[in-house]
C-alpha cells in the first residue's frame, strides 16, 4: 500500500482493537447464556430448598388452605410413568439402533434413521395428543399407561440415535474377528459389539430418561392428575412435572412454595442423571482413545 507510514500502524491498531472488542462481545454472549441458568438454579435451590422437607417427600397433598402435605403420590407416579416409557423405550430404541448400525445400509435403515431424527424434534405435546386419542379416548379415562406411551415416543428416537452412533464407534475388526471365528450374527452383536459400546448406549439411555422425566406437556391430558395414591397403571396419576405446573398457576401462596420444592426435586434428579451420564461418557471416551 502506498499510503503514508503514519496511517498504516494506526489502521492496524484499529483492526486489532476491533478484534479485541469482538472477543469481548463473545464473552458477553456467553455470560448472557449462563446468567439465566445460574439464576434459575439459584432460585430453585433457594426457594425450593426453603420448603423442602421430609413431609413433602412422604405425605399426600393437603388442601391449600390447611398447609403442609406433600407430593409423595406424584413422586411415585413420575417413577411409574417414566418406568413405563423406559420399559417400552429401551428394547425398541436399542433394537432400532442395532439395526441401523449393523444391518442398516439399505432403504429401511436410512429411512428409519431419518424418521428418528425427525421424531427427535417432534413437539412433545403432539405425542400427548396422539396418546390421548389412541389410549385415553379408547379406555374412556386418563391413565398412567397413556402417559408412559406418550413419553416413550420421545424416548425411543434419542436412544436409537445414540445407540447407533455408539455401536458404529466399535472398531470394524472386532466384528470381522468374530465373524471369522464363525460366530453367528446374533451372538456377534449381543456379546461382542454391544458390550464394547455399552457405556455410550447407557449414556444415551440416561440422557433420554432425564429428558422425559422433565416432560410435562405430553402428560397434561394423558396421565392427568390425582390427589391420591395411584391405584393402578390404568388410572389417572399425579406426576411431579404436572404438579409443578398445576401448583404454579394456582392462586395459593402455599402451593406456589410447594411448586418450587417440587422443581428442586425434579431439577436435582435431571441434573444428576445428566452429570452422571456425561462423566460416564467422558471416562469411556478416554478409555477408547487410550486403546
Amino acid at each position, binding site marked *: 500500500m502506498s499510503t503514508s507510514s503514519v496511517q498504516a500502524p494506526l489502521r492496524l491498531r484499529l483492526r*486489532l482493537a*476491533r*478484534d479485541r472488542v469482538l472477543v469481548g462481545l*463473545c464473552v458477553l*454472549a*456467553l455470560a448472557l*447464556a*449462563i446468567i*439465566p441458568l445460574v*439464576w*434459575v438454579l439459584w432460585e*430453585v435451590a433457594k426457594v425450593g430448598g426453603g420448603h423442602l422437607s421430609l413431609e413433602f417427600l412422604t405425605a399426600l397433598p393437603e388442601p391449600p388452605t390447611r398447609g403442609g402435605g406433600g407430593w409423595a403420590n406424584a413422586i411415585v407416579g413420575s417413577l411409574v410413568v417414566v418406568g413405563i416409557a423406559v420399559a417400552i423405550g429401551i428394547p425398541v430404541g436399542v433394537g*432400532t439402533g442395532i*439395526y441401523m448400525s449393523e444391518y442398516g445400509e439399505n432403504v*429401511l*435403515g436410512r429411512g428409519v434413521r*431419518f*424418521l428418528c431424527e*425427525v421424531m427427535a*424434534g*417432534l*413437539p*412433545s*405435546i*403432539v*405425542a*400427548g*395428543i*396422539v396418546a390421548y*386419542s389412541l389410549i385415553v379416548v379408547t379406555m374412556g379415562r386418563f391413565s398412567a399407561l397413556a402417559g408412559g406411551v406418550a413419553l416413550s415416543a420421545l424416548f425411543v*428416537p434419542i436412544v436409537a440415535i445414540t445407540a447407533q452412533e455408539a455401536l458404529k464407534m466399535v472398531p470394524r475388526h*472386532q466384528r470381522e*474377528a*468374530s465373524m471369522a*471365528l*464363525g460366530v*453367528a*450374527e*446374533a*451372538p456377534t*452383536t*449381543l456379546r*461382542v459389539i454391544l*458390550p*464394547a459400546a*455399552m457405556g455410550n448406549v447407557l449414556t444415551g439411555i440416561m*440422557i433420554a430418561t*432425564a*429428558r422425559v422425566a*422433565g416432560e*410435562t406437556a405430553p402428560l397434561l*391430558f394423558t396421565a*392427568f392428575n390425582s390427589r391420591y395414591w395411584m391405584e393402578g397403571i390404568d388410572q389417572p396419576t399425579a406426576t411431579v*412435572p404436572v404438579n*409443578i405446573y398445576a401448583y404454579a*398457576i394456582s392462586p395459593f401462596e402455599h402451593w406456589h412454595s410447594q*411448586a418450587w420444592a417440587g422443581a428442586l426435586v425434579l*431439577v436435582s434428579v435431571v*441434573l444428576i442423571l*445428566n452429570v452422571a451420564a456425561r462423566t460416564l461418557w467422558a471416562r469411556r471416551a478416554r478409555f477408547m482413545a487410550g486403546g
Partner: protein
Amino acid sequence: MNPVEVGTDQARRTRPESEKLRTGVGGTSSVRRPPPPRRSRREQWGDAIRRRWFRYLTGGIALLVVAMATLIFMELWLGSRPAWQEWGLSFIWRTEWDPVRGEFGALPFIAGTLLTSGMALAIALPISLGIAILLTEYAPRFLRDPLIFVVELLAAVPSVVFGLWGIFVLAPVVQNQVMPFIAGSPLGLLPIFGEPGPGYTLFTASLILAIMIIPIIATLSREVLMAVPRDQKEGALALGATRWEAMRHVVLSYARPGIFSAAVLGLGRALGETMATTMTIGNRLGLTLDYFEAGNSMTAIIANEMREAVSEIHVSSLVAIGLILFLLSFVLNTAGRLVIMQVHTRET
C-alpha cells in the same frame, strides 16, 4: 452381561466366548458340502431364518419406529378431519375461537407461535454464535470443556422449571424493568411494541424461548465451526488477517450453511416448546401483533383446552392445530437435517 466387566478388556474376553459359540447356531459349513442336496423352498427359508433371525428381529423393531411415525401422522390427520371438513383450509386463517358457539380458527395461535419463535431466534442466534466462536477459537483449553458442559446443562433443565421461574421471577422483572426500558428507548418506536402492561406477554415468552434454544444453536454451530478445515483459517491468518477477520471472512462464510441449519433446528425447537410458553404468554384469546400484549400460541391453546374440550369439533380443532404444528416442525427439521447432511458430504 456386565458392561464394566466386559468393557474393560473386550479383546481377550471375546475370544474364548466365540470359541464356545461356534458350535451353536448359524455355522455355514453345512452349506458348502458337495454335492448340495436339493432343498425345498421352505427349507431354504428355514435356514435363512435360523442364520439371520437377529437381523429380522431388529429389522422388525426398526419397522415399529416407522409404524409409530405413521401412527402419529394418521391419528393427527383422522382426529382433525371434522375441523377440515367444516372449514377447509380457511381454518388456518380464520381468527375466531369460541367453544360456546363452535367457531374455531387457527390464525391467532399460528401468529403467536411465529412471533415468539421468530423473536426468540433473533435474540438467540447472535448470542449462540458468539458462544460458538468463543468456544472454538478463543477459550483456553482448561476452560473449554467445563464451559461446553455448562452450556449443555442449560439444555437439560426441564421446560416446566423455566416456566415456573418465568412466572415468579422473569415476568415481574420484564414488567417493571425491561418493558418500560424498551418503551423509553428508540426501540420502543418500532410498531411491534405497544404500551407496556402486565408481565405475561409475547415478549416474556420470547425471552424464555431464547434462553431455552441458545444451548441447542450454540452446540450445533460449534460443531459446524469445528468442521471448518484448519488450513482455510490459517491461510487467512498467514495473509495478515486478524483472528476476527479470519473468522468473519473465511470461517463464517465457509460455515454459513451449517449455521443456517442450526438456526432452523433451533426455531423448530422453539415452535414446539409448550410449558414455558404456556406459563408466560398470558393465554389471551384473539389476534395480536403487539409483543407487549398477552397472546397465545399453538402449543399453549392445546395445553390449556385439550383436557376440557367436550364437543367433537372443539377437540378436532385442537388436533388440527397439533397437525399444523407437527407439519411445521417436520418441514423445519427436515430442512435443517438436509443442509447439515449436505455439509457433511462436502467435507468428505
